[in-house]
């Protein structure tokens, strides 16, 4: 017996969607669309700072991390090459 649940869900979905739509209509949500375009720009002051110059230690740390990841990628590439070379043997 599943129909009552389906019907309840459909009814709930429709009622919520229609209620919200008519609330928006009466509340003027669709009226000033030109101003709405600018809302994200007004939302917060410009906040992108210039990139911070890192200390020598931080630069070394990032370089070490980069080489670790590069080694991991090289290992992945080696697996792929090995697999391709040996593809016919499997």
């Amino acid at each position, binding site marked *: 017996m599943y129909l009552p649940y389906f019907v309840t869900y459909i009814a709930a979905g429709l009622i919520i969607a229609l209620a919200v*739509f008519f609330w928006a209509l009466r509340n003027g949500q669709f009226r000033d669309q030109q101003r*709405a375009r600018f*809302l*994200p720009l007004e939302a917060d002051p410009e906040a992108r700072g210039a*990139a*911070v110059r890192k200390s020598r230690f931080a630069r070394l740390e990032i370089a070490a*991390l980069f080489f670790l*990841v590069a080694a991991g990628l090289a290992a992945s590439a080696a697996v792929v090459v090995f697999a391709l070379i040996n593809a016919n043997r499997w």
Partner: protein
Amino acid sequence: MENQNVHIPASGYRTAKGFCLTSAFWMMVATFMGLLGATELIAPDITENIGWLVFGRVRPIHINLVLFGFVTPGLMAAAFYYIPRLLRTELYSETLGVGTVVLWNAALVGVVVSLAAGHTQGREYAELIWPLDVGVVVVFAMVFVNFVMTVATRKEPVLYVSVWYALAGVVLTTLTYCLGNIIWRPDTGALAGIPDAIILWFYGHNIFGLLLTPLSAGVAYYVIPRAVKAPLYSHTLSLVGFWALLVVYTHIGTHHLLQVPVPTWLKVISIVDSVAMVIPVMAFLINIWYTAKGRLGEIHADIGAKFVFTGTIMYFFVSIQGSMMALPQVQRVTHFNNWVVGHAHIGVLGFAGMIALGGLYYILPYLTGRPLYSRFLADFQYWMVLIGVSGFTVVLTIVGLIQGNAWLNGETVYRLLPPVHIYYVLRAALGLMIFSSALLGFYNITRSMFFEPGESS
């Protein structure tokens, strides 16, 4: 070095920060599980005798963690930041928000433990046992209360489209999750027969389309205009896309069941609406791309916007692919094989995952008042994810076509295993790349949050 232009409220954006960390952490675990699963497809005996790590348990852990651990929290982090900003108010309750983050993470731990222990309801994307189902509904209800009360106390009268999308995503998911998991039947979480298949795929598609899609669209509509410093191309068009998504997307789940004896009228509706998805998709993409038109330099300069914009391109591909895959003649070849897995990776990782990472990187400097710890690492992660997801697309599409054509011609499953083996190796290699990128991302995000950047040398 603090950025003096950033205003951080007394609440300190604790909820948004909590969701950032949640997303970054669970991305590592989720992608590791994906890598493990891919490895098991190459070497099935690799976890022999380790019952809680067999493929049948690893796969649902991977999927549930990607969905609820990595992507959704990443998108939530941005939503918890932009909703108060767009409404010119503060979040209704940071305490409630932090409580949500804690409960969310507790539920995720429960997901891993229960699925690894073999406790599952056995329905794809709806595997979680009843107590966890209730936990998921409760956390979404908590998010809903926080969002709605923030809207109620707003100073900005007009709701920007991002707010509409975020609210809709939370409301629709709460309702759909209850229905799709048959939450009124705690013992099985299922109906009997064909009605269960119909309801499962109604849910299975909507958990992506009515959760990840609206939350991702909300982030894109906020980040892109800000990054390019230009107003949205058309707010009216964005609302047309929003309401069209609600009308169209809810009907398309049955396109997963075209080869199943479900009523024909339901199949026809699902196919027609799958093709009609082009309306909300193009409304969204035209709007975003026209907003960014002629300003790609600004997109390139901002790592958050770069992730988000790439996500919108992936959205184009996955949506066109989805509409075509709903056609019965196409689906005879592409269904029930790795083509669909490739499609899912473009959608969840390429589209929603990219936008989640973009939203996260975009808001981080605002949350902390400091620039990102390392733009280089973020860029590196961007390229790893992009190469990884593009590789998945190519490899899994090839495997899918091999499997689909062979099975259509009556070939048996096991005879296809040797020819597709090489592609499974490639898939695991790409999985390693995505997992490595998650490690980089977690490091970069935690350093950005908790440690001062190095002093100028």
